[in-house]
């Protein structure tokens, strides 16, 4: 294929690719090959992928082409390539969750998300980089080296799902799946100029998703447009009997809502506690402009107060480590992954301790100890117990806010992408990146980040967050799609097209 042909395929939306493939204008194999060539070309610099499944992806694409040629029914995203965060199991494909402790492990089963991707006809290109066990906001905590932001290779792509966001931003895949425990889909979306959605808790199966914090973890779509995110959301969402927290209801009509794109008469709330002080000037400026656009489009905008959001970050950094310290107990060097120090003399506890010391990175060790502390006798009530009460107050703040308005808005992140190393030595400074995204995870409702422009002072992407009530995921697609259309109309193109060539 010509370089121009390859370029046009990798620049296409998922929606356009799906239509072209099913119409026979292009084969799934040609689309997959174009993306694999793009990965081979740019990923040495970006490092979005931990594993590229050249052979497997081509085989999946060829199988789709055979089905189409035979006139058999195919899924709604037949032949569309997708990048998978390395936290989901996929049979026979190395799955590490960004940790050395799982290096070389090949799962014997598919996750619920992989099942759904296969049903939809997606072609899984490979596994994307992430902070180890999804603990981080920059991918600097990956056991396999960081991913670089396609907008500026000296800067972080966000985290933990920086690999998924960078893969989509760098045109290595039109779609990616991420997971969001405290912002790990939305914050990378914001700093890479892409769209990222955390669905309602229970909206997408957690079966086969390597658990970080089970009451917070949620898988969701990463894309370059709101419509593409909706298509992937619809494909991966829905009930899975193998996840006891999976919601046994149909996925809200997110695709229909993305088509609707009409905010007239809608009531939008701006969260007072998630604006102003602490937010970079260019972030606040673009946010205010986006709000003004929504007002011009016919939405009613009011300010609302969620006073307990101020305590959400503190509660999160007790609840998450507590759940993580328990979930990560399974990495004991006995059943899968790394085993260290098994010299025939050491006992099982010594081998476990040596294995976990060798296999876990710095941030994981830190959070495991924090969680162990918060759950230990004498401290439980003051830390974990109090954090659970704050969680109730945060959920109550959302409930009161959604009594007044249909959706809530805030900037997704306080700043644009920062440089590598800037926040590594100070864990609390790193944690502050998620200050606006965490409340939604605590309450279990849904939120989207979409690009709204570049900060004038550094020319880097800014994200806007739309928060909606649980199981009202369609609302954020409606608002996001309307805002995106207005911005594209203003700019004449999607923001991602302003990213420098790699």
């Amino acid at each position, binding site marked *: 294929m010509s370089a121009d042909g390859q370029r046009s395929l990798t620049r296409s939306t998922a929606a356009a690719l799906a239509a072209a493939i099913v119409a026979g204008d292009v084969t799934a194999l040609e689309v997959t090959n174009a993306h694999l060539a793009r990965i081979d070309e740019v990923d040495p610099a970006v490092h979005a992928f931990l594993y590229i499944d050249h052979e497997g992806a081509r085989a999946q694409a060829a199988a789709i082409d055979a089905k189409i040629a035979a006139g058999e029914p195919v899924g709604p995203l037949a032949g569309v390539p997708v990048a998978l965060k390395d936290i989901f199991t996929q049979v026979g494909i190395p799955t590490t969750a960004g940790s050395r402790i799982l290096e070389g492990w090949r799962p014997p089963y598919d996750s619920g998300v992989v099942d759904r991707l296969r049903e939809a006809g997606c072609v899984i290109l490979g596994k994307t980089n992430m902070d180890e066990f999804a603990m981080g906001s920059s991918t600097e905590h990956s056991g396999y080296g960081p991913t670089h932001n396609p907008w500026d290779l000296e800067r972080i792509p966000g985290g933990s799902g920086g690999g998924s966001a960078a893969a989509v931003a760098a045109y290595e895949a039109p779609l990616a799946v991420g997971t969001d425990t405290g912002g790990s889909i939305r914050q990378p979306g914001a700093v890479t100029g892409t769209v990222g959605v955390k669905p309602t808790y229970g909206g997408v199966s957690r079966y086969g998703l390597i658990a970080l914090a089970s009451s917070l973890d949620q898988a969701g779509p990463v894309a370059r447009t709101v419509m593409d995110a909706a298509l992937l959301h619809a494909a991966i969402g829905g009930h899975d009997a193998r996840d006891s927290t999976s919601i046994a209801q149909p996925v809200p009509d997110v695709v229909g809502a993305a088509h609707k794109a009409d905010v007239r008469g809608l009531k939008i709330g701006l969260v007072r506690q998630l604006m102003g002080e602490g937010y970079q000037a260019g972030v606040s400026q673009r946010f205010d402009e986006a709000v003004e656009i929504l007002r011009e489009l016919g939405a009613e905008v009011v300010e609302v107060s969620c006073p307990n959001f101020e305590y959400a970050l503190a509660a999160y950094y*007790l609840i998450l480590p507590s759940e993580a310290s328990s979930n990560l107990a399974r990495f004991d060097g006995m*059943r899968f992954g790394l085993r260290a120090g098994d010299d025939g003399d050491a006992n099982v506890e010594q081998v476990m301790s040596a294995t976990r010391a060798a296999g876990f990175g710095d941030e994981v060790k830190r959070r495991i100890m*924090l969680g162990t502390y918060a759950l230990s006798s004498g401290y439980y009530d003051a830390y974990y117990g109090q954090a*659970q009460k704050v969680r109730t107050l945060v959920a109550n703040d959302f409930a009161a806010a959604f009594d007044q308005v249909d959706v809530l808005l805030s900037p997704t992140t306080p700043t644009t992408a920062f440089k590598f190393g800037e926040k590594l030595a100070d864990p609390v400074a790193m944690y502050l990146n998620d200050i606006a995204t965490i409340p939604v995870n605590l309450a279990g409702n849904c939120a989207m980040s979409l690009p709204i422009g570049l900060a004038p002072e550094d020319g880097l992407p800014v994200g806007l967050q739309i928060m909606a009530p649980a199981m009202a995921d369609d609302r954020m697609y409606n608002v996001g799609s309307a805002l995106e259309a207005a911005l594209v109309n203003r700019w004449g193109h999607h923001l991602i097209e302003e990213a420098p060539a790699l």
Partner: protein
Amino acid sequence: MSSQTSISTEQVAHLANLARMTLTDDELTRYADQLDHILHAVARVGEVAADEVPAMSHPQPMVNVWREDVVTPGLSAEDVLAGAPAAEDERFRVPRILDGE
């Protein structure tokens, strides 16, 4: 305010032992400092949430989930043991459990 450090390296060593992680002396010192810093930041949860506020452990009301009592295929021992660090006689091979003295 390092003079107010409330987490000692001994405490970190205790936590590391509870969590089954062998830490170096450098790690013990660094984590004592960092955990202290983090705990100061998160102790704010004590400022709100009085006794009458119920604790929330999960976003959904948790109910038991039943399924039909039918046999579904599971994984073969071979598939499961393929990922094990050590296997023997169709079982996980593990280090000795007891100290043999």
